């Protein structure tokens, strides 16, 4: 399964990912249209300042997703590719998902009165945030092959 990997040491905090995310969730997929929309699109990931650096905080699409467990209206569900998404029409704005999410990446859309979260850009080959990151701090990785790559890297390092 492909997931978004955050290389925090590469993040310069430019927030291009946040802008690309909003454009991807706008009615028309351009920056100028997105900023002109009556209700501008909400971002679904958040660049934050930590003690030692900056990094985007993003939905992990957890296997045991607390937001799905706690969603009482059946709005939050897992799609056929395995990503945790939200059905707009079923959300009743109880905010259980917001309280359940340990990463703080489900938020309230105060205009639409519904919860908003990352949907992994189902219509795109690569999520907009990953495609837009100018320093490649966001990358798509396969969680099934990543461990093996890590092990290889470790051995290579030891040989040096």
């Amino acid at each position, binding site marked *: 399964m492909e997931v978004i990997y955050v290389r925090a040491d590469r993040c*310069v*905090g*430019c*927030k291009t990912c946040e802008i690309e995310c909003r454009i991807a969730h706008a009615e028309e997929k351009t920056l100028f249209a997105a900023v002109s929309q009556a209700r501008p699109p909400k971002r679904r990931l958040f660049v*934050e*300042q930590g003690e030692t650096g900056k990094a985007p905080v993003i939905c992990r699409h957890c296997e045991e997703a607390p937001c799905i467990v706690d969603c009482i209206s059946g709005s939050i569900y897992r799609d056929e590719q395995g990503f945790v998404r939200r059905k707009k029409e079923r959300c009743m704005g109880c905010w259980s998902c917001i309280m359940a999410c340990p990463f703080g990446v489900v938020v309230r859309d105060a205009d639409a009165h519904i919860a908003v979260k990352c949907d992994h850009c189902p219509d795109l080959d690569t999520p907009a945030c990953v495609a837009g990151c*100018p*320093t490649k701090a966001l990358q798509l990785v396969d969680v099934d092959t990543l461990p093996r790559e890590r092990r290889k890297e470790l051995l290579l390092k030891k040989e040096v």
Partner: protein
Amino acid sequence: MERSTDKAVTHVLNNHKGGKQLQTVWDRYEAQQPQCGFGELGVCCRHCMQGPCRIDPFGEGPDRGICGATADTIVARGLARAIAGGTASHSGHALHMAHVFKKTLEGKAPDYAIKDEAKLKAVATRIGIEVEGRPVKEIALELADKALSEFGDNDKALIWAATTVPLGRIEVCAELGIVPTSIDCTVAEVMHRTTYGVDADPINILLGALKCAVADYTACHLATDLSDILFGTPQPVVSKANLGVLREEAINIALHGHNPLLSDIIAQVASEPELIAEAKKVGAVEGLNVVGICCTGNEVLMRHGIPLATSSVSQEVAIMTGVLDAMVVDYQCIMPAVATVAECFHTKVITTMPIAKMPGAEHVAFNEENAVESARAIVRQGIERFKFRNPDKVCIPQESSTAIAGFSAEAIIGALSKVNAEDPLKPLIDNIVSGNIRGICLFAGCNTVKVPQDHNYVEMVKKLLAENVLILATGCASSTYARHGFMTSEATKKYAGEGLAAVLTAIGEAAGLEAPLPPVLHMGSCVDNPRAVDVAAAVANKLGVDMSQLPVVASAPEAVTEKAVAIGTWAVVGGFPTHLGVVPPVLGSKLVTETLTATLKDLLGGYFIVEPDPAKAADALLAVIDERRAGLGLS
């Protein structure tokens, strides 16, 4: 992060009655986190509409912009434009002064006059105007024309630069091709060479930036000279500094900004019995209380002893005391947020300059041709607001420190002449040679939201004073030291090392103060930085060395503005190692960073030292001072 180390500012931040929705510079800073790394590194270019372009600092993405500009080119261009921005500001300030000076001589600005004839003659003589046997007005008119011509297209080196720095500096600048012939044409040249498709050689761009910084120095020096001629050369004056100078029973009017053309006239009219009576009539039993903020505050502090309320980063906090009836501003360093904060109180923010208006403020045009009437109208606006003051929102802190200010170069030489009338510089030089004064450090620049207010200044000065370094201060650096009690005789006893304390005591006693001089000398506003150069140049000339050999350093530990970048750069051109406590947006280019912090040392003697840690910065400056002393054969 702690917001301020100033107790008065902290008290108001914690206890103000402006309501929870009130936001200050510190809240807005937090909301901006994290800030864009491309901007922080200086590798974002928006100079053409094919862009914006960004260079990947990690080397995986683009290594040049669409036009082909590398990180080195982009960073150099950005720095040059910052210096041009600063120079344009000082040019605007100086040109404004020159216009009013000319109008005064032509009888078109009757409320201004030549207040300091001795300074007029000294400046005239220095720039080659015949003084002997000529009427004052004739000398002044020639001087005004020479001043105005500094801004236009000339073929000779700028007079205000060429006549105020030692010959050695002029030779170094001529060799590098960084001698400007016009203030404004040099700003325009930087804008030209950094626009799409002109100068791409980072070193050549940096040389253009250095030349522009010399133009900035010229504008600053010219502005200071004309201020002194029109309003008097500052002499030591005792006043108070910090928010505790605001008074519940008076109409409090804050003067904020930079140019004394407005603030000096308001300072004058504020003592008029009619206006004081009007203030009392509306219920302010203590009458009018005019206070200063930022650099215009320094101008009126030095010349009128007007107390200083606070400095630039905490300008909103003055309003949050709930007793500020009007904030009168001209230009530079005035945050548009003051009008928003004022909405939570009764304070009226009054803009006065045609080029500096802000939403939410009231604009009352200041007319130099009718200055006193204009000033009275502005003061009356403050008086009118008194009745809207809400007693429940009053939050005046206790803190204010005594501050001795007004140490112009002339005042320093004057004090020294009390020790040795025939050769005033001798006592200073003798004590530098003996090591009683290990070196001199000029603190300049702003207060930044990125550092707890004043922290870097105070930590550095304690260490340097203990090591017998004499401290000069200008701009918001001087405000900091005034607010923290470093501009008193007691501070000399408390902080100065043995040698320095002995010197300051001897001069203070000779000057009839019956107490030591303060260990930090308030030399004026930020535009007044050339006053420090005048002292250094006099010492260098007397010793027959170049300024780049003197144990003199500069520091802007909490710098903010483009003006500070310009001033810091001309300090480097002047041969002074210059510390910056905030990292400027240049680290995206190794070449530019290396040039500023190392290569310039070989070329100019001066260079930048970037060190955010104040203790390490003080150590670095002490090491430089010792290196310079060794170079002069002093132990």
